[in-house]
């Protein structure tokens, strides 16, 4: 997921309100249990994501990711469902079939487990969509600024900021080194080739990056930089932030109350 340079309502929100909304979402993802409440949460998050008007390619990626999460959660929970009653659809190993059977207590795919997995995957999909919405609507530096003003230590913030700057440089550097190694005859095809590439890529990449890191550190030190940053851009809470947070908070409380009173 990458930052989308657009002018949507979500983009205009203060990063802190998006972080707090993310926290509310995380709380709901953990607290909600009933299928309807989980489905309502998923629909809400889907609407928030749709507000971003993402490109078709992004939507396709998200759908593939959600479908894989959906399938794997259904399969894994189908196997590991331990509550009763449960109906075995397919039995792979009975508890009586030798040592493996006695260790595992039998391996079977349970119908109730598949349904449970399908419901639980709504949590994963909601989390995925919510994080995608936050990441796609907030510039990383603004997100860090928001986290800093919410209490994340400055040095950790500095480390994360610098590492974000390093990422594209490292990726370029890695491609350049791999190309050079291939021109010198390195075979990178297959699993063994992948491991070989990892081995021949890492030392030159790290050594070169350390050189860059040293240069950056020296440049910072000669400017008497101590880890504390002053920023040109200052975050300000607008009315829309308060309104959005108010609506989100009310929605969260209503969903929890709905779950508590529903049979």
């Amino acid at each position: 997921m990458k930052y989308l340079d657009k002018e949507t309502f979500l983009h205009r929100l203060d990063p802190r309100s998006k972080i707090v909304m993310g926290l509310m979402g995380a709380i709901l993802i953990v607290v909600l249990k009933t299928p309807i409440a989980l489905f309502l949460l998923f629909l809400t998050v889907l609407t928030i994501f749709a507000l971003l008007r993402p490109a078709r390619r992004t939507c396709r990626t998200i759908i593939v990711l959600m479908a894989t999460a959906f399938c794997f959660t259904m399969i894994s929970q189908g196997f590991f469902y331990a509550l009763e009653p449960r109906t075995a659809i397919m039995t792979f190993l009975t508890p009586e079939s030798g040592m493996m059977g006695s260790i595992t207590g039998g391996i079977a795919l349970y119908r109730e487990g598949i349904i449970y997995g399908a419901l639980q995957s709504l949590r994963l999909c909601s989390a995925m969509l919510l994080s995608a919405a936050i990441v796609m609507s907030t510039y990383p530096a603004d997100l860090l600024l928001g986290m800093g003003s919410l209490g994340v230590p400055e040095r950790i913030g500095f480390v994360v900021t610098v590492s974000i700057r390093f990422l594209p440089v490292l990726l370029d550097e890695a491609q350049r080194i791999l190309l050079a190694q291939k021109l010198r005859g390195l075979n990178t095809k297959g699993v063994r080739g992948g491991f070989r590439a990892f081995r021949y890529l890492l030392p030159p990449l790290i050594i070169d990056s350390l050189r860059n890191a040293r240069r950056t550190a020296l440049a910072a030190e000669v400017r008497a930089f101590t880890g504390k940053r002053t920023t040109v851009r200052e975050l300000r809470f607008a009315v829309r932030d308060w309104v959005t947070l108010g609506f989100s908070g009310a929605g969260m409380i209503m969903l929890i109350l709905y779950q508590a009173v529903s049979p």
Partner: protein
Amino acid sequence: MNLYIGSVILIVILGGAIFHLLRTRNAIPTFSIQDLVTAALFCSLLYIAILPFKFGLSRIPVIQAFFFSIPYTAMLFIGIRMIPKAGTTTLIICGHSLLSQTISSGVNPLWWPYALLASFVLELYFLVTKNYLQTTRNALCAGFFRGLTVYIYFYCFSAPFIWHQFYAPWYIAIQTAQGIAGSIIGAYIGMHLSKPIISAFRYGGI
């Protein structure tokens, strides 16, 4: 939920114990700008090292833990060997966790205890042994402890609480065993690869 909250309290106690040990030994670390920038570099390298896992290998059931832990541990241990002092592990692991939350998975504090535990276990191990991966044996033991704690915590506490997903004990045992094996192999690779890097750092004029 109670189990998860209990685990968070335990992690806080672990952090307190580490801080107390550091204070009694007068070894509370200070990081220069160069240390911070190097740690940031390793956060990025960790992110890049596990990109193939994020794009596909994590979907392979049963053997995912093995594939994940090798590059992660190798890269982490090279980083710790470059800045061998208390706090480096926490800085790199938590920095990487925040980095991937900031640019890909969204900020979720419920995952922070997982990152803190992964850091604190190694910090405590290094403090007790007074050895920051100076020997291969120390690195292999550190890899073992990393694999053991991180995977048990993930499958027994994080996944059931955050995602409401439950796993059979035999599956957790298989994943943990793979995590341990992968972390030990990763530790060995990290030690092996860090030697030329440290030589270049010391004598090559980096």
